[in-house]
């Protein structure tokens, strides 16, 4: 059975049909990428799956159960976690605290225990801190642990969001342009990290503009254009598909000729 299944998902913003009748599914350990030009509806699709937007039509199934329109915090409890294209960092907290907050579901306890700093509360905080430090090491941010998150570079914040999302030990991880704004070395590190997390059995849904990365690590690719799924298949098949080349790769090729010319 698939871990995540999306059926006929759609949403309108006023007159704009931002996503239309999109469906696909995701199995444990699989990396599925959603590609398409800017404004194709990729982030909107993520927002519907993760409960940020309530879909106008269609269903989202987690392990066969209908979870359409559930609040993100309830989806988090069912093992769904995500990062954001436009960073959503807790700016005033330290880097370490940002990742510790990803342990919320495991570290939370009675409020009175927290107010009086009872041993149980302190133990839960300590465990979250140990876990968070391990994750920071994994994304290469261990030395920035005590810094205020707002002071980090864009690329570092991208990795911080990944570490926070991993802290939930999700069954399904949604990554919205994790490598945007990162240099070649950082991109390759993120690339390895994603493959590693998938190898541990997490299902990954990825939106990424770096085509080399997408082609290298995806098991399956879904192509969106103007909110509609225009193609899907394995990387080789998708990159040969004429509609895809026209809608997306072609447009990008044109862009890069402009940029260089």
């Amino acid at each position, binding site marked *: 059975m698939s871990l995540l299944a999306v059926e006929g998902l759609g949403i309108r913003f006023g007159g704009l049909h931002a996503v239309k009748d999109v469906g696909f599914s995701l199995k444990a350990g699989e990396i599925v990428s959603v590609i398409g030009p800017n404004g194709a509806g990729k982030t909107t699709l993520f927002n519907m799956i993760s409960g940020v937007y309530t879909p106008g039509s269609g269903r989202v199934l987690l392990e066969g159960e209908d979870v359409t329109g559930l609040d993100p915090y309830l989806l988090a409890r069912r093992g769904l*976690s995500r990062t954001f294209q436009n960073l959503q960092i807790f700016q*005033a907290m330290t880097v370490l605290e940002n990742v510790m907050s990803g342990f*919320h*579901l495991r570290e939370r306890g009675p*409020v009175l225990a927290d107010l009086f700093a009872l041993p149980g*509360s302190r133990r*839960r905080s300590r465990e*979250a801190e140990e876990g968070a430090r391990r994750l920071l090491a994994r994304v290469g941010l261990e030395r920035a642990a005590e810094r205020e998150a707002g002071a980090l570079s864009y690329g570092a914040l991208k990795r911080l969001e990944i570490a926070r999302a991993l802290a939930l030990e999700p069954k399904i991880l949604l990554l919205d342009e994790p490598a945007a704004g990162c240099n070649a070395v950082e991109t390759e590190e993120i690339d390895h990290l994603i493959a590693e997390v998938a190898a541990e059995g997490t299902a990954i849904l990825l939106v990424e503009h770096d085509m080399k990365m997408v082609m290298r690590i995806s098991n399956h690719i879904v192509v969106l254009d103007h909110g509609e799924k225009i193609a899907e298949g394995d990387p080789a098949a998708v990159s040969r598909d004429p509609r895809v080349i026209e809608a997306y790769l072609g447009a990008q090729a044109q862009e890069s000729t402009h940029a260089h010319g």
Partner: protein
Amino acid sequence: MKLSAKHSTLLLLALIIALAPIFFPSAYYFRIGSVVFVNAVAVVGIVILTGYAGQISLGHAGFSGIGGYACALAPVHLGLHPALAAVLGAVVSGVMAYLVGRPILRLKGYYLAVASLGFGILVSMVLANETAITGGPDGIKVADLGLRTLLADAGVPLTNAQFWYAFSGICLLIGSWLALNLHDSPTGRALRALHGSEIAARTVGVDVARAKVTAFVISAVYASVAGSLIALQNRMITPDVAGYMHSIEMVTMAVLGGAGSVLGAILGATILTLLPQALTVFQQYEQIMLGLVMMLVMIFMREGLLPSLTALVRGRGE
């Protein structure tokens, strides 16, 4: 041994409270000191609500009213000891905060500010108009806490002003200890997370509506305890304690010192309690002065006094 930030903050506070009397020119300053501490207790509650969780209330004086009048009424009508009456007031305030906050805090935006404003006005009107029970606008007498007599019998004779200075100072230390514990606890991280990004907080599993209600209830209990302290110390209470101006004063004190920091909030409470003592103009034009302070802080140091100064000192140091 190196002290944690929490312990050094508490130690600093305890030292200031214990040593300040050495410099008091007259016994009257014990009285001023205790007013500072009582205000600071309420403002530490605002730090939890506004500084940690990012929510704004314009009606917290309503809870001070409940705490204050509980100390006046419960001993007379229920035969409770004044100390237990204060506890009862805190419980009632907490329950009221839950009932008021629960439906509102599910909504986004500034509904809480508006609704709490309404709640505060409602409480102060009831207190002023239900003359038969509350004594109306002139206020009502409050029973003696009795602790000072107990201390005198035990061989620790204190003047009334000295006793309330020490008692409210200890209450402030306890309130600060709890708030600092909360800051670095799982609940505190959830509150600060929703302040930073509500959507990201939900994504990591924080039940945002519930977390906001938690902060609202805790801060209401702080305001209630402050109201009880005012009543017990003055041996009387008037509806002004629940008034709109008192709510605004609390928020201004928190914002002036730095709503995110316990020590900053205490500094804000200290300055805005002492200013009217030092400058009679401040007393005459209190509303204008509070508005002015709020505007200047928002324009020149949005973080508040203490965080801005700390940043300045750090910037120089590097």
